[in-house]
């Protein structure tokens, strides 16, 4: 187990290196110098040189470093926890990320919890009542859920709750954009603002979780030991929720780890649509303005998070299921 852990961590770090090299090269061969983005055209050459030097792109005289050297500089800074400076804001990428990360974690965490809390029971009920109305409805809804991308869902939600309901005689709806200035200090208001973005992020995951849970539960229910348990006279509830569920729910751990990059993907656009001040919105803006260090920073952060969560999922799996050994 220890050896396995060490190996996995080593592979993870190697992956991060490869990815940073890949993306660094990509962002550096991109046409357009960073200084051309959102800068006063009358700026003096020496200021440009100074800024390019500060960004780690040139030496003091304004001569560009070759890309491998730039990468080594970038890596050196990365090891000190420095992801470079944003081209657009005069800020460090790490500062920007740290400002936004708590908001994103809040949104993504709640969305994931909601998805798990709804998706898993839905899948279990659908499986224990196979071919019932509930089962068919669940399959149908999860089908549609998979086919709607989160940004289209977000737009639909804005239309229904932000426009149609507000104009209806009810004059009621959820706030369209952003987080209230109160932020985390005002939980009720925060919750109110979270409803739409969380819904639009959670639907896809609910669809995936319930589908997967149903399949996993059905598979377990058809196994011999379940029939044995029923044959020896245990009640249906006990067999379903004690014997079957324990085995069926295990693969969900892995699924959650897989779901994380998906949610992050969705969050990039969803946060942009709902003006949620998180990392996704940061990436959204960085993409629109082509602020590559920020894009690179977000990619690295997400990749590190994904690798970490995959590792945690595997370890949890091994703890939860003693049959698995590494």
């Amino acid at each position, binding site marked *: 187990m220890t050896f396995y852990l060490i190996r996995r961590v080593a*592979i993870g770090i190697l*992956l991060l290196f*490869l*990815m940073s090299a*890949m*993306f660094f090269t*990509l*962002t550096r*061969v*991109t*046409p357009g110098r960073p200084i051309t983005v959102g800068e006063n055209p009358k700026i003096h050459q020496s200021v440009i040189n100074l800024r390019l030097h500060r960004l780690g792109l040139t030496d003091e005289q304004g001569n560009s470093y070759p890309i491998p050297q730039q990468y080594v500089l970038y890596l050196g800074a990365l090891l000190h926890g420095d992801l470079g400076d944003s081209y657009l804001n005069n800020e460090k990428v790490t500062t920007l990320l740290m400002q936004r990360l708590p908001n994103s974690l809040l949104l993504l965490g709640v969305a994931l919890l909601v998805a798990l809390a709804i998706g898993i029971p839905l899948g279990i009920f659908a499986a224990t009542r196979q071919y019932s109305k509930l089962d068919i409805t669940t399959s149908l809804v999860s*089908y*549609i859920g*998979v*086919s*709607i*991308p989160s*940004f*289209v869902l977000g*737009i*639909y939600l*804005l*239309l229904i709750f*932000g*426009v*149609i309901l507000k104009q209806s005689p009810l004059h009621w709806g959820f706030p369209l954009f952003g987080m209230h200035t109160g932020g985390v200090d005002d939980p009720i208001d925060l919750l109110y603002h979270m409803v739409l973005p969380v819904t639009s992020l959670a639907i896809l995951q609910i669809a995936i979780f319930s589908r997967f849970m149903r399949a996993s539960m059905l598979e377990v229910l058809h196994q011999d030991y379940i029939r044995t348990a029923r044959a020896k006279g245990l009640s249906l509830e006990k067999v379903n929720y004690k014997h079957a569920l324990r085995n069926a729910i295990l693969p969900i751990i892995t699924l959650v780890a*897989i779901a994380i*990059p998906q949610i*992050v*993907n969705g969050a*990039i*656009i969803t946060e942009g*649509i709902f003006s949620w001040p998180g990392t996704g919105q940061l*990436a*959204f803006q960085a*993409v*629109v303005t*082509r602020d*590559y260090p920020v*894009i*690179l920073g*977000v*990619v690295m952060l*997400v*990749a590190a998070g*994904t*690798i970490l969560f*995959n590792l945690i999922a595997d370890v949890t799996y091994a703890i939860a299921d003693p049959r698995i050994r590494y």
Partner: protein
Amino acid sequence: MAQVPPLPIGPAGVPGAVPDQLSVETTVQQERDLAQPGARADEFGVAPELGFWRLAVIRFLHHRVATGALIILSIIVLSAIIVPIITGDLYRIQDYRHPFKPPFQSLQHLLGTDDLGRDELARLLRGARVSIMVGVLAVVGYLLIGGTLGALAGYYGGWLDNALMRFTDIIISAPFLLVVIAVTAATGGVRLTTVIIVIAATGWYEIGRLMRAQFLVLREQEFVQAARALGASNARIIVRHILPNALAPIIVSATLGVSGIVLLEAALGFLGYSIPPPEPSWGNMLQNFEQYLLDDQAYLVVFPATALVVTALCINLVGDGIRDALDPRQR
């Protein structure tokens, strides 16, 4: 050997699978008849044998939802191909006297007009073209890259296998959307060809892994050993013996892949990283959604969004229908 009626399902359509049903006395002529299903099979007292693929088509047509989805999808695809040829430049003709014409009011602009007075229906159909073209071409790319690499990795193993798995690990742990955007930006300018190539180059791993898994299982099977014993070359074994047996899940995955790409292309267009503006796509038609929603022009948002969802849903349903048709055991 007793006369066993041929199984209606299974590897019957696969070349080389039929002759094991023949008794010793069968003449050459009868053997030929069996090889051509249905020709003179009634002499044997068995029903005309249907091939694997024909049976699959029949099973698919029995699946009502999937057939319905296929019909809707064909209507969308056909009108996306044909209508823009007839209407020509209608999608970009601007009529400044009639911007934001509401839908269902006149036959001239059935779905209304957008902010520049362009016909919304013409733009939707033109956009369908973009979505479907990107979807189909990128999946062809998936199949070429993923299929080839997956097959080779699964068949030969070794370093290629390792490289494939590591590449997949990298792609899976990065946010795919940002990857595509970064690569698109790096390859200079946003053009449709770039978008297709980038999607194909970064998204093929799913089909690659599936192909690899298929090949890993199939290469150990007896019919492959038999082919090898008969002296077939590796290339022949891969193409003639393993590939036909590995196809079913690949076809399903490719079909579902199209809907994934259609949605991805829309997301890219929405972010301004797909086909550039004068040309409409369902994604970039949604770009000004905030303004449309706040100004009461919701139809300009609803139409492209709904077109997107309906298309993706239909492709998924067809894909599932194909899955059920190709593998009747799995349901």
